[in-house]
């Protein structure tokens, strides 16, 4: 029989090779391009510090940091009160609201961007009347910030609700008994308990906004686009690989710093002991009801309104516009087929990788010999989040020029972005699984594979399915990597939507809206099919 340590190593080998080939090596290649030893650039790379002397590029970096920071502040200011209401008040529909909070996580970036435009764009439901009045929102940073909030408010709210449920009821009660006002009790007892959780969520928000691409590309315009968009422009439009390399490396350094802060905060969050959570109360009095309505109102305005706007506009496009034609075009059917098969392939690969990754973590833990190794291996699952998709795709493009247009590389890149969801979800579930079940089965003579298949997997199936659901949603809506690596004839729905947005005429806008609806429906379908009805509130993936 193999020793656990050997098993751990052999299990870890597959995801490790995958990470090295598709993530680490391209990043190293990018470093080389940035340092000037690359050969593809048509002009020399930027000197390392020139970035900060060039007003234009410095504005891009500063704005990237600024928009992420502002989003964090807004998400906290809006999210914390909403989380408090959801955690402390009991009302009909509360469970549904919590469940709907998952929605933005599965919405593809491009769909979200279109939703924001359908709502606030110069011809959107709210944007058109404002434009009439002389307020052009598309020349302001508001569109991008709103788009950021759409994705990230829910993350802060979920983290806040989870954290508030860990607050010890007796401590708050004691404070109140000693005469503290509710506000004071919150500030002195609840806030210190939840602050680390919120801080870690805000780190993630910052990371997502800072390295985000699709939203900034479509909503940023000329002035409010971020560094990721600049990197894309430098590669795709200007062929300035050296400059792009330097920028990408700076981005890597900055996201790496934020990710380190996140890891440090996460580590400080001790696993909660058994606390007596505070009981939720039904709202009494108009003020409390107002709070509930305000909380739901904020969520509707920020997280649901863009999706509703898309739905309505697409509906209108189908009924009275020219949206119907697009559904039967060969281009659409091809893109649909491509989206489905690429996602299925990526999902299969991501599931396999995530499973081996999580099992390797488990095996490392069981072997007990290498604490550091186990920890590092756990952290490795976060790597694809740290490096932005644009950077990964760009690195791949440089490193494997003869593979740039190969399906294997495209699917590999999809899987790279999708598999951490499976790995994280499974690792968490395996952590909570008592060792004794598997040991009992093994004692009764079951071989390891049989133990895995008959005991372990069924026990963690819920977590596996949740991870797969997020992985599927990621693959369906993938945009950045596709833009770099895909062959034109492999156009997916996201690419088709983007292409339609860039073409003239109302018919193309109608088509983009309808396609966005199709994509959203696919993501939701994949999510419900794989995740299925769950009894418990699902945990946030972040």
């Amino acid at each position: 029989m193999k020793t656990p340590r050997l098993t751990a190593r052999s299990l870890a080998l597959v995801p490790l090779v995958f990470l090295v080939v598709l993530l680490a090596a391209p990043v190293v290649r990018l470093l080389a391009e940035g340092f000037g030893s690359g050969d593809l650039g048509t002009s020399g790379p930027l000197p390392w510090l020139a970035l900060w002397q060039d007003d234009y590029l410095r504005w891009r970096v500063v704005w990237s940091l600024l928009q992420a920071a502002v989003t964090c502040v807004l998400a906290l200011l809006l999210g914390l009160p909403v989380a408090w209401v959801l955690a402390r008040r009991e009302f009909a529909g509360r469970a549904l609201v919590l469940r709907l909070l998952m929605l933005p996580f599965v919405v593809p970036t491009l769909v979200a961007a279109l939703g924001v435009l359908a709502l606030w764009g110069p011809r959107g439901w709210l944007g058109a009347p404002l434009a009439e009045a002389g307020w052009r929102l598309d020349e302001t940073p508001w569109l991008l910030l709103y788009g950021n909030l759409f994705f990230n408010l829910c993350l802060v709210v979920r983290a806040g609700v989870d954290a508030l449920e860990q607050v010890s009821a007796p401590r708050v009660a004691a404070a109140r008994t000693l005469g503290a006002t509710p506000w004071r009790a919150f500030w002195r007892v609840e806030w210190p308990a939840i602050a680390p959780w919120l801080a870690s969520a805000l780190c993630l928000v910052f990371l997502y906004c800072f390295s985000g691409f699709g939203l900034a590309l479509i909503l940023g315009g000329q002035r409010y686009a971020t560094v990721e968009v600049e990197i894309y422009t430098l590669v795709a439009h200007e062929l300035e690989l050296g400059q792009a390399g330097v920028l990408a490396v700076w981005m890597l350094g900055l996201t790496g710093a934020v990710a380190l802060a996140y890891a440090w905060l996460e580590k400080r969050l001790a696993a909660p002991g058994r606390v007596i959570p505070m009981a939720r109360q039904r709202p009494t009095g108009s003020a409390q009801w107002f709070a509930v309505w305000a909380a739901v109102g904020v969520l509707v305005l920020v997280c649901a309104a863009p999706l509703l706007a898309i739905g309505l506009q697409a509906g209108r496009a189908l009924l009275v516009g020219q949206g119907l034609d697009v559904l039967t075009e060969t281009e659409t059917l091809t893109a649909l087929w491509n989206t489905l098969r690429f996602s299925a392939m990526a999902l299969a690969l991501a599931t396999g990788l995530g499973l081996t990754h999580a099992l390797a973590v488990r095996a490392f833990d069981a072997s007990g010999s290498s604490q550091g190794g186990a920890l590092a291996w756990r952290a490795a699952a976060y790597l694809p989040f740290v490096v932005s998709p644009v950077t990964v795709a760009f690195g791949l493009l440089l490193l494997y020029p003869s593979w740039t247009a190969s399906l294997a590389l495209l699917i590999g890149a999809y899987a790279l972005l999708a598999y951490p969801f499976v790995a994280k979800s499974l690792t968490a579930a395996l952590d909570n699984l008592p060792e004794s079940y598997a040991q009992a089965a093994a004692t009764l003579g079951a071989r390891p594979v049989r133990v895995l298949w008959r005991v372990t997997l069924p026990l963690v199936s819920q977590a596996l399915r949740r991870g797969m659901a997020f992985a599927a949603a990621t693959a369906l809506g993938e945009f950045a990597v596709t833009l770099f690596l895909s062959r034109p004839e492999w156009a997916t729905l996201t690419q088709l939507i983007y292409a339609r947005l860039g073409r003239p005429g109302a018919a193309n806008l109608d088509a983009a809206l309808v396609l966005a609806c199709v994509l959203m429906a696919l993501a939701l379908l994949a999510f419900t099919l794989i995740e299925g009805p769950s009894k418990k509130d699902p945990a946030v993936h972040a």
Partner: protein
Amino acid sequence: MQRRFLFSALVSASLMCAGMVSAVAQTKPPLRVLAHGSFDLPKPLLAQFEKDAGVKLQIVKAGDAGEMVNKLILTRAQPIADVVFGIDNTLALRAQSAGVLDAYSGAATQRAAATGLPENLVPVDYGYVNLNIDKAWFADKKLALPTSLADLTKPAYAKLLVVQNPATSSPGQAFMLATVAGLGEEAAFDWWKQMRANGVKVVKGWSEAYYTEFSRNGGAYPIVVSYTSSPAAEVFYSKEKITEAPTANLFLKGGVFRQVEGVAMVKGGNPAAREAAGRFIEFLRSAPVQEGLQTTMWVFPAEAGAPRVDVIKQHAAEPSTFDELKAPLTEAQSKAWLQRWTKTVLK
């Protein structure tokens, strides 16, 4: 539960196999044509070509012309096409110096063309990038039309012009080059600096400028960088039957650029498709295509003596004079101007 997993795994695996098999099963290779997003020819013509040449066309569109050339360069180790359409005189050098094009010497290269293109590229069509105005807007505001680029820097014309970013759009780049060719480099960038102060609006691409920002289409800017053929297209696509275009061309010194588009063999393309690629190049210079492209892509035919269709004759004026760059555009020069433009107008 496990059965469901097994099932989904099987489905994924079989999908993967299906994908691979379908990739391998094709016997006669299709002709892969790389083109920019605006490539458009009458469908019956393309079908006729497929029938005559006995080959399936696979037209792959790769965004803006500049983006398309870059994609060709970045994928040169494993080319994504056998023949490429839409490289123009501003991009020719980039494609040449990257060595992504192959020589072609068929019949089309022997015949005289209305305009020329550098080696390896066979000219197919040409057009002029210039300023278009919204006639109704100017009539309504009783504002005289500008008679020179300098007029546009005056307060009366503040916030009236929308242009494309030359870094991301080929008409944008063409217009920038027009100002350099017509005014001289220093005067041109000085003009751009004044235009920035006078509220020139910059957008990413042509469709955004024309269909969102142009006052004719509901925007706020009555002057837009577009093509001399755009007024003809307005008449052609108008819902009601109209005899006069609602927009007009402005032919200002330093505001007109001639763009010539060509087709070329892709180096490293499938050898089995090479013969068909040659036929495709000849096809683009054939009479039916030279006529058809006038009202699908709104350009003038490159074949010398090819007849113009009526709507082009009536509504798409050709400028009597226009400026061309003194020396052929080099890659380094083009980059330097782009960077200077970005610094002057955007930073």
